[in-house]
């Protein structure tokens, strides 16, 4: 469904991705694991066209993405919940969510999905008229994920969805990720909480300094020494 082949991306002169290749099949949850600065977020930004690869190519359902504008890519069915949330601070919770569905024509479907995110995150319904910027950090995280869901994407990119969430919400978030996936959304998940990520994912890639150093099924990665020592914090 999604394919990155030998992708090299730069920030200015800094090489952030050095020949990264990965693929995501329809219906999967795939997780990217790596230290801060390894290139996980850059990978997501490259998929969305926010960073242009200098070499290599990115394709989605057989269509090349690396020359398309970001809004076109989103219309193809890829949505992201970005790290650091990036909600619209001066717009209400409802307006934020409606903007998530900006590219969709189906009014009924939008109304239905609005109900769906409110049932996933009842807290957002309580804050429906509040300005996004006045929400607490965790609430903004819920809003960012919900906004991405409102696009009803075929592929959902989640960047650190558990960051800043209470333990009970972390569990909820991962349960929701599995739910969304069961309902047919393919998910590419970037997480610091590698334990939880590997628990819900089917497959995973370990990224170091801009390339893939290990990829396998989630269960196998859980057993690998590298992952256990470096990313699961086992001693």
């Amino acid at each position, binding site marked *: 469904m999604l394919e990155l082949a030998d992708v090299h991306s730069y*920030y*200015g*002169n*800094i*090489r952030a991705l*050095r020949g990264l290749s990965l693929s995501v099949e329809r219906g999967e949850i795939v997780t990217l694991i*790596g*230290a*801060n*600065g*390894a290139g996980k977020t850059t990978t997501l930004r490259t998929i969305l066209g926010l960073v242009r690869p200098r070499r290599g190519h990115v394709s989605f359902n057989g269509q090349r993405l690396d020359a398309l504008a970001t809004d076109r890519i989103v219309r193809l069915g890829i949505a992201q919940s970005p*790290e*650091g949330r990036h909600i619209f601070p001066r717009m209400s919770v409802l307006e934020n969510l409606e903007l998530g569905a900006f590219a969709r024509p189906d009014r009924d479907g939008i109304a239905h999905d609005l109900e769906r995110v409110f049932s996933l995150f009842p*807290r957002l319904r309580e*804050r429906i008229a*509040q300005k996004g910027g*006045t*929400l*607490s*950090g*965790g*609430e903004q*995280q*819920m809003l960012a994920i919900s906004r991405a869901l409102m696009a009803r994407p075929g592929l959902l990119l989640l960047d*650190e969805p558990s*960051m*800043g*969430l*209470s*333990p*009970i*919400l*972390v*569990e*909820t978030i991962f349960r929701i990720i599995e739910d969304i996936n069961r309902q047919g959304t393919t998910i590419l998940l970037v997480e*610091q909480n*590698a*334990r939880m990520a590997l628990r819900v994912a089917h497959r995973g890639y370990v990224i*170091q*300094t801009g390339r893939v150093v290990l990829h396998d099924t989630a269960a196998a990665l859980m057993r690998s020494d590298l992952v*256990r020592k*470096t*990313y*699961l*914090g*086992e*001693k």
Partner: protein
Amino acid sequence: MTPARIVLVVALLAYPFVDRALGLQTVHAVSDGMIYMLLALGLNIVVGYAGLLDLGYAAFFAIGAYAMGLLNSPVLGSPLYGHAWSFWLCIWVAAAVSALLGLVIGAPTLRVRGDYLAIITLGFGEIIPVAIRNLGDVTIEIGGWRPIERLNLTGGENGVNPVGRPYLPGVPFETDPIPWYFLILVIGALSVWAMSRLHDSRLGRAWMAIREDETAADCTGVNPVSTKLLAFALGASFSGFAGSVYAAKLQAITPGAFEFQVSIMLLCMVVLGGAGSIRGVILGAMLITIFDRVVLSQTTFLVRWIGRATGVSALASIDLTLWRWFFFGLGLVLVMLLRPQGLAGRRVRPMATEDASDEPAVPELSAPPRLEAVPEWLKARAAAGVDGSDAALDVQGLTKSFGGVVALNAVDLVVPRGAIIGLIGPNGAGKTTFFNVVTGLVRPDAGRITFAGRSLVGLRPNAVVARGIARTFQSIRLFPLMSVLDNVLVGEHCRLASTVAGAVLRPPAVMAEERRARERARALLAFVGLDGKDDDLARNLPYGDQRRLEIARALATEPRLLLLDEPTAGMNPRETDTLTDLIGLLRRELSLSILLIEHDMEVVMGISDRVTVLDYGTRIAEGTPAEIQRHPRVIEAYLGTGYEAEAAGRSAPR
């Protein structure tokens, strides 16, 4: 002195004589250009250093010029007529008057930023020329009685003409442009010298911190009110010098010389060259002046010549100087598109470190904190802090609501000296609001906050920092375009004493203080594992390093209580472990009290002495970590039933 500098000085000194020998007669124009350069440099303090957009800077230019004109050559009808002051006195009066008006215009703008500030300064820039025009003929009539009739304060539309010239025995200011050139050169050189020293001082760092993030600066101990006022006052004082010399040199001033376009042109010089960089602003001012005075007129001749040669009459009669604003705008648009930081602006990304095909086998983590290296000075400070006053935070009945939402509802919380207290709760429970109230960012509706026996309620954040409370932010708030070292030095701001005069003159006491401050900052950076990164821009650090830099900056304020807002968010287990060790060490070695908001239960339950739980702004539980983990309401609202299983799963493989 470097060879390049010697060449520059010789060139500047020799230039007017070379000009005379060659008969070029450009000294007048160059001197005028230097006055505009000085103005742009003054504006750079406000816009480039402190980040306050000023659209009416020409008003200060006018004030300087008129202070000179009216005192040195009072107009007919003015009360001062017949009592002229010396030029040499007037330039200082002009600078002082400008600085004073800088304070006056600065004061109402303290609460506003960005667009609003720009609009206010725009208004000020419009008011001054109008006031000057109208003060040329003042009549006050009260029911037929005229206490003041046709009083001429400013010369109105005609301005002041002539303005007296400076007098120095044997120096021909009346007939020769060269003395003017040297006078302006001396003033300009002294100004550049003073500005560059201000830039690299405690005050300069405070300006840049305000520019980068005013809230974070306030919470790091920088008083935004006095810092911004100083920017306005000092920025204005340089235009006072420039204006007064301009008036005396031109010998005639009219309100028309200080209109909006002048403000915009000065702003363009700053932005084109690179706001914040003295070299950049000088370059910008030179380019714009040369373009305006030389390139356009010379190109006009060229185009006309081509027009005549080819017989195209449209070209033969063209006057490109009429198009100056067109070319000007076009050039500016191009520079902003191609080099938004300005021609000489600081590069915001590091230079290429083109790989060398480095292939580290393990992920490139930065050096871990050198925990053995707790800076000695910090230890000494901590020991000195044990003065019997028990540095405990005592919060009682703290209440705050935003509109209808109750963020904090009668919350009690005590942090004893040397304790680590965890503050947990569901998202939106009011934890960060609690931090914001304690640190003075938000005023409480009710409740008491005392620290070391004194109330904190009503103090501004920088005053809270001075009392010994430092914080970090949930979403990291560094000063992104300042160096790593400078970020930490801003933390020391409230413990340093140097003033404006100290920053410029650098007496030994200030030099020693600055040297000590740098040593301390480097020791702190080594402690958190960031040594060797002094000159990196904060924004170029990886995420985990940014978190640690924020902690180093907080420690630089010499706190006795540290508030950490989700310090391990976004960190992997290894980084989290190091940070946990660091927190424990701060308590053990420095007897620091720590209040910790954190969602990583392994961290909170591992190092907290006691834990307070908030839900919907209300304290629902307080106790030891063991008690909290069993508390049914906490499990229901926060931990979740899966928590125990998760905790068990985590400890099993060990």
